[in-house]
């Protein structure tokens, strides 16, 4: 009897939580293993080299089981993804930082009651809504504003993406600004600094690693976004000539072709390789956030 109650008191909950935790790890690992298995076929089964995939812009893989071999150069899509996501980060970060500073330092009451919930609603908007609004409203607007032949451009896609990653960066940055110890602020005031000097010289540097983490999480989100980007980037298979021309990204080419290609063909394998590349990119960013967190948390707080 006593044994049973001990099980209820302690082990039942622990076992349940452990199973869930291990399950999450297993799912993540098996998705990774599956992507490696499917994505490596481009190199192992179809015999393309890494250079064929990463450096060539010639993408014309064969879409039938018996057809002749084609080419799998993904350089256009990789460049498109990097450019679009980098630009989105450049656009979103200043706004996110401003919103985070406003929320945490300038007007915490207004920020916490109105701004934060409003920003959280952004996260819940489905990406098809962003995409369709981008296609029907933003894209014609950009076209008319800059007198372009069409509005589906890298710039349009970056604007849509910036809007989508804005809440992620803002909330992480606001959290890390709020976590700056009060003693820092008191010290700064005691030394005679104004509120803006406190924010600019003390708060921002102290919250730096946290803000960096937010930016990287935002960038990861941008890389993975398929639908909204796909609808407004135009998906031209060429390197963009400037920010106001269209191109393709890794996610857009996967999204528009995966369902139409047959399992196991060269085309299908090339798409899986791109999916694997996306996974590796987000893995890289996640490791980067851990390094940043260690840098920011070390020393003062001891091992956490």
């Amino acid at each position, binding site marked *: 009897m006593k044994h049973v109650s001990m099980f209820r008191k302690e082990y039942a909950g622990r076992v349940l939580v452990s199973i869930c935790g291990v399950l999450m790890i297993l799912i993540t690992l098996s998705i990774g293993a599956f992507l490696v298995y499917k994505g490596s076929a481009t190199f192992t089964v179809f015999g393309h080299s890494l250079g064929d995939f990463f450096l060539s812009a010639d993408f014309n893989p064969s879409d039938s089981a018996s057809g002749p071999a084609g080419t799998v150069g993904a350089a256009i899509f990789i460049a498109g993804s990097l450019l679009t996501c980098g630009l989105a980060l450049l656009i979103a970060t200043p706004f996110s930082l401003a919103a985070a500073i406003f929320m945490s330092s300038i007007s915490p009451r207004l920020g916490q009651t109105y701004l934060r919930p409003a920003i959280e609603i952004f996260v819940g908007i489905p990406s098809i809504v962003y995409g369709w609004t981008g296609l029907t409203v933003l894209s014609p607007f950009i076209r008319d504003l800059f007198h372009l032949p069409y509005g589906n451009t890298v710039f349009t896609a970056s604007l849509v993406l910036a809007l989508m990653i804005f809440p992620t960066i803002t909330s992480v940055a606001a959290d890390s600004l709020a976590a700056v110890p009060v003693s820092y602020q008191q010290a700064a005031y005691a030394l005679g600094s104004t509120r803006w000097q406190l924010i600019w010289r003390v708060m921002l540097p102290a919250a730096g690693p946290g803000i960096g983490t937010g930016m990287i999480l935002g960038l990861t989100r941008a890389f993975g976004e398929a639908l909204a980007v796909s609808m407004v980037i135009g*998906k031209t298979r060429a390197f963009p000539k400037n920010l106001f021309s269209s191109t393709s990204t890794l996610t857009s080419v996967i999204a528009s072709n995966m369902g139409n290609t047959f399992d196991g063909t060269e085309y299908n394998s090339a798409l899986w390789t791109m999916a694997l590349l996306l996974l590796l990119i987000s893995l890289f960013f996640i490791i980067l956030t851990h390094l940043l967190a260690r840098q920011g948390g070390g020393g003062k*707080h001891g091992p*956490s």
Partner: protein
Amino acid sequence: MKLKKVMGNAMAVTLMLASLTACSTSGTAATSTTTGGTTTAAATTTDVATTTAATTAETSASSAAVTSVAATTISNLSDSITGSGSSALLPLAQDAAEAFKTQYPDISVTLNAGGSGTGLKQVSDGSVDIGNSDVAAEDKLDADKAAELVDHKVAVVTMAAIVNNELSDSVKNLTKQQLIDIFTGKITNWNEVGGPDQAVLLVTRPDTSGTRALFTEYALDGNQESSDASYLETDNSGELLETVKSNPGAIGYLALSYLVNNQDVSTVAIDGVEPTLENTYNGSYPVWGYEHMYTKGEPSETVKAFIDFILSDTYASRIEAQGYGVTAKMTVSR
């Protein structure tokens, strides 16, 4: 700090999964289920009069694999049909499933989009009963796998070239050569074909799309669309329609089924022949193809009932009302 790190980890995993699902969901974007008026449990009670309880119990528990065994033993068909594939055929298949259920209330039909490749793969490996496809199985599958599939040409789809409404008065007709020159990037301004001084903007579909394959083969005589010209690629026909509608100088192509009661864009005649169902039936308009429903081997009684229903004379008028062509009315064949 500790809490923050845990949250960071959780967010990282969530984002990773989110980015993965974002890729995979596109394959199964649209899902619709049409269930019979009565549930399977209710069907069991009505069937008791004619069959043994054991048989119906087996029926209600049946998966696609045992469908043929169970279905042949009962006359009042009660079963489920699953299908996936072509998004061009999906609206028609969904409408047919709705109508079918009034005659066979105990059969539930579940249909998914996902693309022709998905449909062919899933019917070939037995995970669905019907694989919908815009393209012939022989074009995509190994010869031995394609040989296992039985083709049912349930409808004819006519593809029309469409232009932005600003061109509706000046570009009513193009010769096939003009069309080829436009899509291969030789003609870049509408004034070269009698239109206004306006740059041509091609709006196309991905090179794996069944719609594009059909248009390339029969409207462009196999000439591949230019990838250097000023063009935009769209994921589906709805997006293409929207892009052509909102960009002056745009030209694209889509199935007539998207143009029923739609004045947002204008169709273009090819060599003087309007893209209509009549012109498709009599063979004068060349850009059409079959919509296929593939089954692995001969279909089970339930699946056959569904396919026969779509091919029936009573349903033919509804096929035409949705902008598709009736296979039986074709005077030419491929």
